[in-house]
């Protein structure tokens, strides 16, 4: 049994070698390594699994390569609606947010729900308001925008058909 361990994912779907340049593959690998190191740093110094998973998710939320936080996909109404959840195995305590539009790091909002409310899940404006009240970093919805996701939205709306990549959450 290892002293500690962290495992991450950055999404799944139709990911083929044909569709990815060496530069893009290198960028994804570097981003994954950054997330791993953020979580490992917590565990290496004796921190909790809970702190580690949050620490690992944050850099992926901040990286436009991934569909979470900055760089997330767009809704049909050309906005970004983000969802996050977190669970602590010690007491099976859990927190989640759905449809937030202004909290920069949704995983922090989920953890705030778990630790600073009597509840498990907030959604929509109420979730954003709760996060703001907890002092979390708030941003305009346009913060999450990237041209790549705008192009994906326009393609889906034009063709009225999603690719497998578009369908993945």
């Amino acid at each position, binding site marked *: 049994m290892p002293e500690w361990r*962290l495992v991450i994912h950055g999404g799944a779907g139709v990911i083929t070698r044909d569709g990815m340049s060496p530069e893009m593959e290198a960028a994804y690998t570097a981003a*994954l390594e950054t997330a791993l190191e953020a*979580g490992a740093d917590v565990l290496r110094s004796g921190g909790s*699994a809970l702190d580690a998973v949050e620490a690992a998710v944050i850099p992926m939320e901040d990286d436009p390569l991934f569909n*979470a936080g900055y760089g997330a996909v767009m809704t049909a109404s050309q906005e970004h609606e983000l969802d996050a959840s977190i669970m602590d195995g010690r007491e099976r305590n859990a927190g989640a947010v759905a449809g937030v539009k202004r909290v920069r790091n949704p995983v922090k909002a989920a953890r705030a729900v778990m630790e600073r409310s009597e509840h498990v899940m907030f959604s929509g404006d109420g979730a954003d308001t709760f996060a703001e009240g907890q002092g979390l970093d708030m941003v305009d919805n346009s913060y999450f925008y990237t041209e790549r996701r705008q192009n994906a939205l326009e393609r889906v709306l034009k063709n009225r058909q999603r690719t497998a990549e578009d369908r993945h959450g």
Partner: protein
Amino acid sequence: TVGAVAIDKDGNLAAATTTGGMTAKAAGRVGDSPLIGAATYAENGVCAVSATGHGEYFIRVGVAKTICDRVKLAGETIEQASETALGEVAELGGDGGVIVIGADGTFAFVFNSEGMYRGVVDPSGARTAIY
């Protein structure tokens, strides 16, 4: 979608998942949300799970809780439990993947899509993979 599962030096487990959902999803739709039990779950002594994929299928199957319950109640390995749960997702028409850590620190990447961005780190070092 992104996610992480971990076990710390005290044997505690945790899981977290964040997503932007599906491109062009209807405003207000929460079908891709990583609901507790569907895409995120952690129970000390059992396992921790984070999932990615066709969210509404994962909700219908209750993937993360199903995996932990099969480990807890049926004595399956985390790989066996994950393959069974993802098999149910596939039967319904969905695909995706999970990352899992067991109470003994073993881990699994299980996915029925063509690829999943993934990585693992422990005191022996870090490894990443895509395909």
